[in-house]
C-alpha cells in the first residue's frame, strides 16, 4: 500500500478525486454527459464546454494562487475583467461591418496593459503602503466597476469583428482556442515559479514575511509583482470573456468571478493562510467549480440556485481545513489522543 500512501500524500490527489467523483456522478445521472461529437471539424460536447467555460476562471485562479500564497487576497479581479473587456471593446468599436477602429492586437494589448496597471496599483497599496490585501483590493473592486461603466459609457458594446471571436469561441486542433492560452500561461507560471527560486520565495513570504526579509528576500517586491501578475491574468481573462459573448457589459462582465477564483484556489489545496501553493490544483479547482455548475444546469435547476450549492461547497471545504473541525470529527470516531 506504499504507493497509495505516496499518492494520497500528494496535494493534487484530493482535488482530482473530487473532480472524478463529480464526473462519475454525471456518468450515471446525466444522460450523454460524456458524449463528444465532431461538428464542423471540432469537438463538441459537455466536457468540451466545461473546459471552454472554465478557461476564464482558470486564468484568474493562476494569478489568485500566487496572491493567496503570499497570504494575500485579490477581490478586484472581477472588476478588472470588466475593465479589460470594456477597454478592448471600446478600442475595437461596435462597427456593424466588422471593421475594427484600431488594430485588434493593439486593442488587446491596451486592455491587458490597463489590467496590469490595475494590478500594479493593488500591489503598490499592499506592498508599499502596507494596507491589508482585502481592503486594498476592495478599493478597486468598488471603483473598478465604475471605471468599466465609464469606459463603455454605461452601455453594452456589441462587437461584430469576426477574427476577435477566435479568442473565446474559436477552435484549434479541435479543442477550444482559449484552453491553449490557459495552457501557455500555466506552463509559463509553473516554469518561472518551480524551475527558479521564485516559487520558494513566494511561499516564504506567505509563511512569514519578516523571516523572509531577514533571509534576504525582498518581500515587498515579491508581493508587488504577485498582484501585478494577478492583474495580467484578469486582463487576459477579460479578453476571453469579451470575445466569448462578443460584447462588453461593464455591469455584469466578471461579476462574482473573484469568488469563483478564490474557491478554485482553495479547492485546489492552497490554504488561505498563505504558504505552499499548487498551481495545478487551482486549475483542477476551476474545473471542479465549472463541472459543478454545469452539472447543476444539466438538472434543469435555475442557474441562480447553483449559488446555494456553491455556498455549501465553500462551507464544507473550509470546515475540512479547520483544525478544530478535524479534531472534533476524529473525536467522534474515538481517535482521541491519549492524555
Amino acid at each position, binding site marked *: 500500500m506504499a504507493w497509495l500512501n505516496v499518492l494520497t500524500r500528494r496535494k493534487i490527489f484530493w482535488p482530482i478525486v473530487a473532480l472524478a467523483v463529480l464526473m462519475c456522478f454525471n456518468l450515471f445521472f446525466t444522460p450523454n454527459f460524456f458524449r463528444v461529437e465532431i461538428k464542423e471539424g471540432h469537438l463538441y460536447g459537455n466536457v468540451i464546454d466545461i473546459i471552454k467555460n472554465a478557461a476564464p476562471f482558470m486564468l484568474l485562479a493562476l494569478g489568485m494562487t500566487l496572491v493567496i500564497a503570499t497570504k494575500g487576497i485579490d477581490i478586484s479581479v472581477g472588476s478588472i475583467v470588466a475593465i479589460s473587456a470594456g477597454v478592448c471593446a471600446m478600442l475595437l468599436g461596435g462597427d456593424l461591418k466588422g471593421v475594427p477602429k484600431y488594430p485588434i492586437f493593439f486593442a488587446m494589448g491596451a486592455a491587458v496593459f490597463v489590467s496590469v496597471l490595475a494590478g500594479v496599483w493593488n500591489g503598490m497599496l499592499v506592498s508599499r*503602503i502596507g494596507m491589508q490585501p482585502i481592503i486594498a483590493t476592495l*478599493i*478597486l473592486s468598488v471603483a473598478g466597476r465604475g471605471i468599466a461603466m465609464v469606459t463603455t459609457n454605461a452601455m453594452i458594446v456589441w462587437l461584430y469583428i469576426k477574427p476577435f471571436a477566435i479568442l473565446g469561441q474559436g477552435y484549434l486542433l479541435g479543442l477550444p482556442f482559449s484552453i491553449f492560452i490557459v495552457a501557455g500561461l500555466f506552463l509559463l507560471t509553473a516554469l518561472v515559479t518551480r524551475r527558479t527560486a521564485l516559487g520558494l520565495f513566494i511561499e516564504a513570504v506567505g509563511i512569514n514575511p519578516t523571516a523572509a526579509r531577514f533571509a534576504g528576500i525582498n518581500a515587498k517586491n515579491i508581493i508587488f509583482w504577485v498582484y501585478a501578475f494577478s492583474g495580467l491574468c484578469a486582463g487576459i481573462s477579460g479578453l476571453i470573456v469579451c470575445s466569448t459573448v462578443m460584447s462588453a457589459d461593464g455591469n455584469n462582465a466578471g461579476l462574482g468571478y473573484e469568488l469563483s477564483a478564490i474557491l478554485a484556489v482553495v479547492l485546489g489545496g492552497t490554504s*488561505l493562510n498563505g504558504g505552499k501553493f499548487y498551481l495545478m490544483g487551482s486549475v483542477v479547482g476551476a474545473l471542479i467549480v465549472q463541472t459543478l455548475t454545469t452539472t447543476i444546469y444539466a438538472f434543469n435547476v435555475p442557474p441562480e440556485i447553483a449559488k446555494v450549492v456553491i*455556498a455549501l461547497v465553500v*462551507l464544507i471545504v473550509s470546515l475540512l481545513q*479547520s483544525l478544530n473541525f478535524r479534531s472534533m470529527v476524529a473525536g467522534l470516531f474515538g481517535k482521541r489522543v491519549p492524555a
Partner: protein
Amino acid sequence: MKTKISIDPRNLPILVTLGLLVVMFAVGSVSFMGFLSPQNFLNLFIDNSYLLILGVGMTFVIISGGIDLSVGSALAFSTMLSSSLLQKSGWSPIFVIPTVLLAGIALGSFMGFIIQTFELPPFIITLAGLYLARGLCYVISIDTIGITNQFWQDAAHAEFKVFGNNFISPSVVIALAVVAAGIYIARSTKFGRTVYAIGGNEQSAILMGLPVARTKIAIYAFSGFCSALAGIVFTFYTLSGYALNGQNMEMDTIATVVIGGTLLTGGVGSILGTVFGVLVYGTIQVLIVFQGTLNGWWTRIAIGFLVFLFCFMQRIFEARKRKNKAKEKTLVPAAEEA
C-alpha cells in the same frame, strides 16, 4: 496665555469625515441652485436609510476585527422573504416582520457560530453566506414580487413633518432608532465594550475573562438582524422583493464604515462615524445627480477613491503611533533608572 484646542487623535478620522461632508455641501450649495435646502439634507437620510442600518451592523463586525460580506444578499433575501410571505402566503405584517428578522438573526448566528467554533476566517464564511442568501432568494422566486399590502403601502407613503414643511419617512425613524441603539450599545453596554476589546486583542480579551465566544456569535447575529431590518426598510422604498437587490451593497457598506473612520484592523471605530460615512456617500450621489452630465457610475469611482484616501490616512496615523511608541520605549528605561 494661549488656549490650545486639543483634539483626541482617536476622534480625528471622524472630524475629517465631518469636514469632508461640510466641504462637499458647501461646494454643492455654491455650484447648484436649490442644493442647500433642509429637505435635500433630509433626503440623504430618506434615500440611504437601509445603508445606515447595514452600516450599524457592519461597524460592530469590523470593530471586532471581522468582516461580513453577506449583508447585501441577506438584504435581498429579506426583501424576497417578506414580499413572498405577504403576497403569496397572505400573512399579516404582524407575523411577517418578526419572521423576517428572525431569519436574518438565524443566518447571522449560523455564520458567527462557524467562524467562532471552527476558527475559520470570517471573510470566507460570510462569502459562503453571501452565496447562500442570494441562492435562497431564487429558491423563493426568480421574478420580482410586488407588494400590495396596505401596511406596507402606508409605510412607503407616510411622511412625518419636521421643521416646517420638510418631511422624513418612517424608514428614517427606524434607521435613526437603530443608530441610537447602536451608539448606546457600543458605548454603554458590556457587550459593546467586549466588542472593542476583541478587536483590540482577542487573546487579551479571552485572558481577561470576557465572554469572547458568545460575543462574537452575537456580533454576526446582530449584523444579520440589521441586514434583515434593512431589507424590510428597502421594501418600504421599492414596494417589491427582487432577488437582484443589493448587489455589491456589501462593498458600499464596508466603504461607508471605513470612510466613517473605523479601522479595518479592528478595535477602533464608532457608529457616529459610520453615519457621517453614509452621509458622505449620499452627498456624492446627490452631487453627481445635480451635476447632471456625469454618469452615475462616477459615484463608485469617487467612493473607491475616498476609501483609498481614508485607508491611506489610517496607515499614516498607525506609522506615526508606532514611531511615538518606539520613542517612548527608548525614553522609559532611562526614566526608571533615575
